[in-house]
């Protein structure tokens, strides 16, 4: 077994048995970050001192023999999560000096178990992007090929795992921001059902779509993390009060008799040949494991991107109104009066993509255009949800590619916003429907990983994870590591 183990469950056993200490494991990861971060740029902030203190506390807890499964596990979170006493920039210049005064609930739940926070991960500014090229802290490089993007917006969360800089990470997914980078970096990423995980303390992008989720090296690790962060939180009125099952309990239940649907609209021309091939092979794996494969239709798929970019930008324009230089963040030119301070602070603090989305959203919500754009998009959203409801009357799960291509080159799509947006075509519909999905490695395109997407019924994360586990157990894609790892 390599040092340290690449799965939480393995490391937990070694920590419990005393063969490894949390402090030595934490030192190892901090050293990895120091060595590889200049190339990968996955971390915006590294909190070495706090991490070592947390690790020492974890070792004391482990010594009592009563340690929860995440005690002493070194992990990192996207820089969108508030973490008390640490900088939280959300990838933006406008929050360059912001220190979180409190913890986000999802992170607090990990901390409560004694998990060790190594630092904060790079991301597209305010989670707006599909390549992690929109960060005020610079782009992230994909550990499988440093000339390529890691995906986005949780690019740092996926790249840090692929580069063995952390054992698990948290991200957020508004239109694919966990699944697409997980696919591009060859790791497991889960977007839970809307309301499954508290958004309290997570900087808002599009509130009706944003959801917190884990990224990990294995399905079991992702299941463990999801169980730790999921559940009702009084501080988030949209978190849903329904019981959290033990996602590990029946993880090996298999897929015999499970009905898996292939939405025909997801197997289109323009799908990269290697992606098509890898997904076709994955379908055969499921068939051989006893799943029944049927074709289904999600007829409104082609409208998802247009629908998403109106709803998400409208919500963003409202959410980002709070960055005005009054209570926190960048303040510019206050001598010219209040209005000028607002306008100059926002102009200097936001990057081009964030400005573009605020502008589009402001326009879509403005008087005279509201019905034609925002309301229209909300109605189309209803139709897209109905597509999923109908499909789930026929099947238990849907199986699709995560993205039409594998990781593209840095700079390849930065000049063409629409082209960039279209790379989210297979992930965005899930957020509009509000249901759960995950990405797991299923093949290679030359050097680069290919991701498989499984989409489950609302709150059926347990079944989703079981199906992913069945595939992982039958294949070894998850064991292949990036050259930089």
């Amino acid at each position, binding site marked *: 077994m390599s040092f340290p183990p690449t799965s939480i469950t393995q490391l937990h056993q070694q920590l419990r048995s005393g063969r490894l200490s949390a402090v030595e494991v934490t030192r190892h990861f901090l050293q990895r970050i120091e060595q590889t971060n200049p190339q990968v740029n996955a971390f915006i902030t590294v909190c070495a001192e706090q991490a070592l203190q947390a690790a020492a506390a974890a070792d004391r807890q482990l010594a009592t023999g009563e340690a929860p499964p995440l005690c002493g596990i070194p992990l990192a979170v996207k820089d969108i999560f508030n973490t008390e006493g640490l900088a939280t920039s959300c990838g933006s210049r406008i929050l360059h000096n912001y220190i979180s005064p409190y913890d986000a609930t999802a992170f607090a739940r990990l901390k409560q178990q004694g998990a060790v926070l190594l630092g904060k991960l790079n991301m597209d500014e305010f989670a707006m992007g599909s390549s992690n090229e929109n960060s005020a802290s610079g782009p992230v490089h994909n550990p499988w090929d440093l000339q390529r993007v890691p995906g986005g917006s949780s690019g740092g969360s996926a790249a840090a795992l692929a580069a063995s800089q952390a054992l698990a990470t948290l991200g957020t997914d508004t239109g694919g921001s966990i699944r697409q980078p997980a696919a591009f970096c060859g790791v497991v990423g889960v977007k839970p059902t809307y309301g499954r995980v508290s958004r309290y303390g997570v900087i808002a992008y599009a509130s009706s779509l944003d959801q917190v989720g884990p990224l990990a090296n294995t399905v079991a690790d992702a299941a463990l993390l999801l169980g730790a962060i999921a559940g009702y939180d009084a501080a988030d009125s949209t978190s849903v009060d329904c019981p959290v099952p033990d996602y590990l309990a029946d993880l090996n239940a298999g897929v015999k008799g499970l009905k898996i649907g292939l939405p025909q609209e997801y197997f289109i021309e323009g799908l990269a040949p290697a992606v098509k091939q890898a997904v076709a092979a994955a379908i055969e794996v499921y068939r051989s494991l006893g799943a029944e494969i049927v074709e289904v239709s999600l007829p409104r798929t082609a409208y998802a991107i247009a629908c998403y970019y109106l709803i998400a930008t409208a919500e963003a324009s409202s959410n980002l109104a709070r960055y005005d230089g009054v209570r926190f963040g960048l303040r510019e030119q206050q001598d010219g009066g209040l209005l000028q*301070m607002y306008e100059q602070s926002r102009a200097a603090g936001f990057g081009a993509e964030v400005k573009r989305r605020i502008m589009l959203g*402001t326009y879509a919500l403005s008087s005279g255009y509201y019905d034609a754009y925002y309301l229209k998009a909300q*109605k189309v959203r209803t139709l897209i949800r109905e597509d999923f409801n109908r499909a789930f009357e026929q099947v238990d799960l849907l199986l699709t590619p995560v993205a039409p291509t594998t990781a593209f080159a840095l700079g390849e799509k930065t000049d063409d916003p629409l082209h960039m947006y279209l790379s989210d075509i297979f992930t965005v519909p899930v957020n509009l429907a509000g249901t759960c999905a995950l990405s797991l490695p299923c093949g290679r395109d030359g050097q680069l990983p290919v991701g498989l997407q499984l989409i489950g019924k609302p709150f059926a994360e347990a079944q989703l994870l079981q199906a992913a586990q069945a595939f992982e157990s039958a294949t070894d894609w998850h064991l292949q590591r990036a050259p930089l790892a």
Partner: protein
Amino acid sequence: MKIQRIEVEQVARLARLALQDDELEALTEQMDQLLAYVEKLNELDTEGIIPTAHAVPMENAFRADEIKASIGTEKALSNAPQREESCFVVPKVIE
């Protein structure tokens, strides 16, 4: 053209963004392209369809009207660009 430069300037004022000339120029072109793309939605008949605001149906979330601990003044002011006593200081708005 779906949108003119003069409308983009008006939207920028609404969004409280002081944009440079080249930014306005680029945004006019990009917003025009994006608005043309989202026209696609008009291919769908949505007559009588109820709009979805949230994916998970939810009622108003009420809670008991009880006093609970809050973040406190010092923490709330800890990131203030400028403060005085327990207040955020902003440029003067009333003559």
